């Protein structure tokens, strides 16, 4: 059965909405495959606006891999803004893909990539617009399998009611495997309906099907246990790890949108995983071990990607890009290659050390030295020991003055507020640090034309980290500390004008905390917020703390738990956490010990350069650290 394009009906609505181009599709390198020739059809969703969702690497990678797979097609769909949502409801136009404008409900699988928990209400909008029942239990034979991935899927419990399945970790291989299971099941005539398909997926141990697990609670609200409710379903579901990034050089042909998006560049992931061991960092914990892409594969991907896209910026992505074993050679090789072509290189996520100044100099060889960003995260040395972000004040000052002396005029420093064991003094330490930075900068440059911007946001404890047991700091305390810091910075006559201050207030972090460490009962809150009009929670102009709190109060009225219970409450070692049955490979005892070490300020080294400290990931997952150096060099491009 073929499906018709919704575009003619959508087109009539587009003159009435903001930025209509985002709904039109037709991006360079996008793919429209024949509907009838595909046995398995995926709709891939990034549950935020197009301008945020389009550049997402995860979606672009899976889109390309699935479309290369014989008999499979993949199209993309994004959250529509409320102006179009209202018109779609008025005119009965369902949620559509931007590639061929097919109705999302017609696909076999709706894969949703949750980079953050703040996309949950947008998932509900998309399901509702698609005509797919919100609750997985109410879906029928004609509805797609709603499958979640992305970092937030490491605790999908708050949205368990709305998901048929979730996968943890790298998506490349498991997406292909799932496609194959769906293909076989369809080819056999869909035996046993949805349940058998989900059973086939669940029994592999690599796909989590929430409805095959029952959650039991203690009277006080804590979880008693999470257990499979039928034979053949494993007790724990494992994450997926791609072991040779050189074999998976995606995206090869980046999508180039007509609409403006948040990242206008060609991005290459230069490695995956991070073992720096920052205790607040969920990404660093759940993506272990470090697996580098080789310098030559990086060079090839950049060459093809720039040629295919026309982008004038290349981003070398990872969780800590300067840690690539051959980053200096990569930087020099690319800067040489693109010299004189007005192609700029960027290196997000770098650590605070002098080596990074050399790199930044290389990257800005042809351009202006405007701003450098560092993330000490904690304001005092004590605080940085607690979070295991090992950078001394001396290091930081030395690095920043080196930057100023080499022509950089603006340094941005990122911090968090509300970290475990934090006091007012730790946060006020940020002001001292910023003043010292400016003072040292003025001395070395002999100029007053240098600036430092302090950017600070609230800390949210995340699952699968040593801080998963920690009490989140309440928003009154966070906001109080942010005010004190502001006063300390602004009140300073000598340095105040040279220091910029940006902050995020504490209330949204509480909701993020509720969704991060929530369990299945939080699903009722999400549904209530959505029904009350909650959309686009990652956007301050749409987010409503008051709505979340009032809906939570009503939705949890019958439960022995509330928002405080989920957020500002410290958990003890034996409490069953909602995600304990989801296996990121981290040994629970190691995590607990690391939490204890955090409180006492004991540091842990990076296992790339020191002996293994038994976090548990490699033996559990059958993985290993993959790093260079390879000793190879980038060759200049051949002139066409």
């Amino acid at each position, binding site marked *: 059965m073929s499906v018709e394009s919704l575009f003619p009906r959508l087109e009539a609505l587009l003159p009435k909405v903001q930025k*209509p*181009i985002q709904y*039109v599709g037709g991006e360079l390198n996008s793919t429209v495959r024949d509907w009838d020739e595909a046995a398995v059809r995926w709709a891939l969703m990034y549950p935020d606006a197009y301008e945020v969702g389009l550049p997402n690497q995860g979606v672009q990678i899976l889109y390309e891999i699935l479309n290369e797979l014989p008999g499979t097609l993949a199209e993309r769909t994004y959250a529509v803004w409320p102006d179009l949502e209202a018109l779609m409801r008025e005119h009965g136009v369902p949620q559509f893909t931007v590639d061929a404008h097919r109705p999302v409900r017609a696909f076999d699988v709706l894969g949703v990539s949750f980079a953050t928990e703040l996309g949950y209400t947008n998932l509900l909008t998309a399901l509702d617009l698609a005509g797919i029942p919100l609750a997985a239990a109410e879906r029928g034979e004609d509805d797609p399998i709603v499958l979640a991935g992305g970092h937030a899927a490491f605790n999908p419990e708050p949205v368990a009611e709305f998901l048929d399945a979730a996968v943890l970790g790298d998506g490349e291989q498991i997406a292909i495997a799932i496609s194959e299971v769906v293909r076989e099941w369809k080819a056999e005539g869909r035996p046993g309906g949805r349940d058998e398909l989900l059973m086939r997926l669940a029994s592999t141990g690599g796909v989590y099907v929430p409805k095959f697990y029952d959650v039991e609670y203690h009277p006080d609200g804590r979880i008693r246990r999470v257990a499979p409710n039928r034979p053949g379903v494993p007790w724990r579901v494992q994450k997926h790890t791609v072991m040779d990034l050189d074999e998976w050089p995606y995206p090869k042909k980046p999508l180039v949108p007509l609409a403006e998006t948040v990242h206008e560049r060609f991005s290459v992931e230069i490695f995956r995983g991070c073992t720096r061991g920052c205790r607040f960092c969920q990404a660093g914990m759940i993506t272990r071990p470090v697996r580098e892409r080789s310098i030559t594969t990086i060079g090839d991907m950049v060459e093809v990607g720039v040629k295919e896209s026309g982008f004038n910026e290349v981003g070398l992505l990872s969780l800590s890009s300067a840690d690539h074993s051959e980053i200096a050679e990569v930087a020099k090789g690319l800067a040489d290659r693109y010299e004189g072509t*007005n192609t700029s290189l960027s290196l997000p996520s770098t650590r605070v050390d002098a080596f990074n100044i050399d790199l930044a100099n290389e990257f800005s060889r042809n351009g202006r030295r405007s701003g450098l960003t560092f993330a000490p995260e904690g304001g005092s040395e004590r605080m940085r020991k607690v979070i295991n972000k090992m950078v001394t004040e001396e290091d930081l000052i030395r690095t920043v003055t080196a930057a100023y002396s080499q022509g950089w005029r603006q340094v941005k420093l990122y911090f968090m507020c509300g970290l475990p064991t934090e006091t007012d003094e730790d946060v006020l330490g940020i002001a001292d640090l910023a003043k010292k930075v400016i003072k040292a900068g003025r001395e070395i440059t002999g100029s007053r034309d240098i600036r430092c911007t302090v950017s600070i946001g609230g800390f949210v404890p995340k699952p699968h980290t040593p801080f998963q047991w920690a009490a989140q700091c309440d928003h009154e305390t966070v906001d109080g500390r942010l005010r004190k810091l502001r006063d300390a910075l602004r009140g300073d006559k000598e340095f105040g004008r040279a220091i910029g201050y940006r902050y995020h207030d504490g209330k949204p972090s509480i909701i993020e905390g509720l969704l991060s460490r929530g369990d299945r009962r939080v699903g009722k809150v999400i549904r209530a917020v959505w029904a009350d009009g909650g959309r686009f929670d990652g956007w301050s102009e749409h987010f409503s703390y008051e709505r979340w709190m009032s809906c939570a109060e009503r939705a949890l009225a019958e439960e022995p738990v509330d928002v405080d219970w989920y957020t500002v409450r410290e958990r003890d070692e034996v409490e069953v956490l909602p995600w304990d049955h989801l296996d990121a490979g981290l040994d629970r005892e190691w995590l607990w010990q690391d939490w204890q070490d955090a409180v006492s300020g004991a540091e842990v080294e990076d296992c790339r350069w020191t002996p293994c400290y038994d976090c548990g990931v490699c033996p559990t997952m059958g993985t290993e650290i993959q790093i260079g150096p390879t000793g190879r060099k980038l060759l200049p491009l051949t002139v066409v």
Partner: protein
Amino acid sequence: MVQRLRVRYAKRGRLRFTSHRDISRAIERAVRRAGIPVAFSAGFTPHPKISYAGAAPTGVASEAEYLEIGVVSACEPERLRAELDASLPPGLDVVDVVEARSGGLADRLECSVWQIRLPGASPAEAEAAVALFMAAGTVEVERLTKKGPRRFDARTAVVTLTAGGVPDGDPHHPCAILRMVVRHVTPAVRPDDVLTGLRLVAGFAPPSPPAVTRLAQGPLDARTGETADPLDLDRDVRGGEPGPAVHAGDH
């Protein structure tokens, strides 16, 4: 920079929903992909030397948009046309390229020829409204701008305005078609403003959104009230090569 090339391009179909910013990004990337030796401005943040003449509004299709590219090594216009066209997404189509040989291009774009399709609107009612509009000395309309509501005359800039229907149109699904030549003035009078004017003078309110296309831009012939190909002047310097097949009057 050794040469400037003047480019006429069209935005068609679903690509009419691009804004002028979307188009400039798409063109810059297409220029890079096509390997066109574009010149860059000097300074800390070099920009490619591409200048755009008055772009059609978002949602409006056009057969006649213009830009100028400066290059650092000489390009053959027809080859550049083909390469840039192949590099742009379908719907952003390069129609014509000439080497700039005289004067400023922007100064030549004195007026636009617009076509407005009004599905569901009766051609006879449209004709009556047009007659009232053209008979008025001035027609004050209001438009919401970034600086708030702004009032201006939408009548004086309109050189010609005619209404008709789709030839052999289905009588059950009428569709009025307006064609007009509008001078480029400040503040700009857009097709939307003329529609607002028709509503004000005659209560003419089409039932569905208008489909607007810019058919041509160029110098205004005061005698005929029509326009000509603005690139002809560059061609004439070399002795008058034929222009492209698509002319304003052909639609």
